[in-house]
């Protein structure tokens, strides 16, 4: 019983320490925004990026932006001031370009003024936590009237769930709207929808220029496009091949009306869903892992750039307006290099337990070890343990068990031993 009580407390202490010690460390030594921002410059026809300076920066080549040190450079190693950097990306920083009097701009024989730049740009992101199943879902969804009888979109009075039917629940009374449910379920069935449905993809907001309804994936994997038009169901079975294995769809109602959104498959391929009869246009992204990588598609009048990155490497593919790849680049982010504090820390603690993970909306209890450094950390903790044991001439079964605990938890186990002194607890 005594052993049980003691190790129960010590294990709890190890868990608590493994969560909070790294948290305190991050709060004290963590650096903000370690990610690199990469673009394809339509002016240079090169990849260009801005990132945090790590370590000692070269003289005079960095800029202090809000007290953090950033550097701007291109793939050939040329460095840029912040203003030069922004002029290399006129479609992104078109407002600054305008202020600096650099608009309209002529590029590749075309002239772009402020209005064109504004209207022809689009950015779509897909982060791991936004993928279905990687965050707690809403469960019920709105089907917004696509042809409202007024300016601006209005929220419907119902939400629908998609299971054995498409069931609408009225918000005023919190009851099923039988009529509407039957109408939509029937309309879907007539188009060949196989219940229960698998996925609902829509953008549940009225803060968008227009509404494209929702995309539904049925039990067989077929993709359906559903809208409410003047109160009536509008259903299209898209020609998207059910065998493609849809994992996620992200819709973006954008005035360019070029594509409905992004479609991610189970084998990590990513497509844009074209307005041209739902044609899937593949984005040529190698080594893309949707569970770990932020994905971004940057559209401007001349180029499309797919940028995707995990914690270490950022990759970018530049395409022309027909999504044909032109160039690609891969860069190890400066922010991924561990700082001195991080290196020292990895020799002190054998592991850390994180309760949040930027790649999921769920809370986690994720254990991260530091490879060989973890072993060294444990070795040092064990050495300290043995030294104290020898000096105090301790012995016995409990000492051996304490040793095992330290061998697994390093300094956390050592600290936990302070909580439960061996000599003071034996009856």
């Amino acid at each position, binding site marked *: *019983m*005594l052993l*049980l*009580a*003691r190790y*129960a*407390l010590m*294990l*709890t*202490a190890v*868990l*608590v*320490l493994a*969560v*909070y010690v790294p948290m305190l460390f991050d709060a004290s030594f963590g650096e903000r925004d370690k990610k690199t921002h990469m673009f394809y410059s339509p002016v240079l026809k090169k990849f260009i990026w801005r990132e945090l300076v790590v370590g000692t920066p070269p003289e005079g080549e960095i800029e202090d932006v809000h007290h953090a040190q950033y550097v701007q450079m291109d793939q050939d190693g040329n460095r840029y001031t912040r203003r030069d950097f922004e002029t290399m990306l006129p479609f992104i920083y078109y407002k600054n370009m305008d202020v600096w009097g650099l608009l309209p701009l002529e590029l590749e024989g075309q002239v772009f003024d402020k209005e064109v730049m504004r209207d022809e740009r689009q950015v779509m992101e897909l982060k791991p936590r936004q993928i279905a199943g990687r*965050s*707690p879902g*809403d*469960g*019920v969804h*709105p089907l917004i009237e696509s042809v409202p009888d007024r300016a601006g979109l209005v*929220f*419907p*009075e*119902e*939400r629908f*769930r998609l299971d054995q039917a498409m069931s609408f*629940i009225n*918000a*005023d009374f*919190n009851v099923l709207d039988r009529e509407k449910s039957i109408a939509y379920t029937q309309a879907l069935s007539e188009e060949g929808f196989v219940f229960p449905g698998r996925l609902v993809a829509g953008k*549940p*907001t009225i803060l968008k220029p227009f509404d494209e309804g929702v995309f539904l994936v049925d039990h067989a994997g077929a993709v359906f496009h559903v809208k409410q038009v003047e109160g009536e169901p509008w259903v299209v079975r898209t020609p998207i091949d059910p065998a493609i294995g849809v994992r996620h769809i992200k819709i973006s109602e954008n005035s360019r009306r070029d594509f409905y959104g992004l479609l991610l498959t189970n084998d990590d391929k990513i497509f844009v869903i074209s307005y041209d009869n739902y044609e899937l246009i593949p984005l040529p992204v190698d080594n893309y892992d949707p569970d770990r990588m932020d994905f971004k598609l940057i559209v401007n009048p001349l180029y499309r750039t797919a940028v995707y990155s995990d914690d270490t490497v950022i990759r970018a593919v530049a395409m022309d307006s027909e999504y044909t790849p032109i160039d690609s680049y891969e860069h190890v982010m400066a922010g991924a290099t561990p700082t001195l504090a991080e290196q020292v820390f990895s020799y002190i603690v054998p592991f850390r337990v994180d*309760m*949040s993970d930027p790649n999921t*909306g*769920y*809370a*986690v*209890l994720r254990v991260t070890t530091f490879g060989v450094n973890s072993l060294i950390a444990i070795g040092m903790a064990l050495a300290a343990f043995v030294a104290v044991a020898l000096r105090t001439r301790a012995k016995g079964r409990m000492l051996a068990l304490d040793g095992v605990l330290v061998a697994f938890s390093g300094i956390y186990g050592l600290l936990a031993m*302070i*909580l*439960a*002194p061996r000599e*003071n*607890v*034996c*009856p």
Partner: protein
Amino acid sequence: MLKALLLKEFVKLRAFWIVALVFNMCMLGYVYITMNGLFRLDHAEVVWYRVIHLGQLYYSSLTYVPAVTGLFIAAVQFFPEMRNQRFRISLHLPIAPHLIVMGHVFVGFLAVAVILIIDLAGLGLMTHTRFPGEVVARALTTAAPWMLAGLSTYLGATLVLLEPTWKIRMLNFAVAAGMTGLFLRGGVPGAYGPILPILCAALLIYTPSVLLPAYRFRYRRV
């Protein structure tokens, strides 16, 4: 014998338990009023939008209620036992000390758990009157770690109160506070869903640790 011990703790706690229950009921009542207030001030579909898609927590005032409840029950159960070291009476009873301590803890734990289950049921039922089942499920998943925090503060306060020395009492306090913090880290509504079983297991491992200060109290060297 164990039954008598449990009964004794029940007799000791029942008046305080009712106080705690009334407090929890008041908080539930407040949440109910808040929830209905939302629907009075806005159209139902707008309330649904905020709650379902923006993650507004109309029941956020419940967040620390279980933690306070656990703390309260542990305090009224073990403060009087530490006054004049009255706990010695129980520890002199002719049954093993771990049975005595776990008997006490079982009753307190149950007292807290019953209130927290009532809280969850109340939250679920009131949500059910205004929202679809998906929202009920998500509200329960969101509030579940708060309830676990209540059990954690109960155990933590017990750990601190039973410990006879000040130094270790402070350390126990740090562990207890840290443990409770694991359940209250927030995140989007329903975020704790997948790790609830793991946290329950952690709480289960944590539970027997209250025996340690009891042993130290029973057999201490001063």
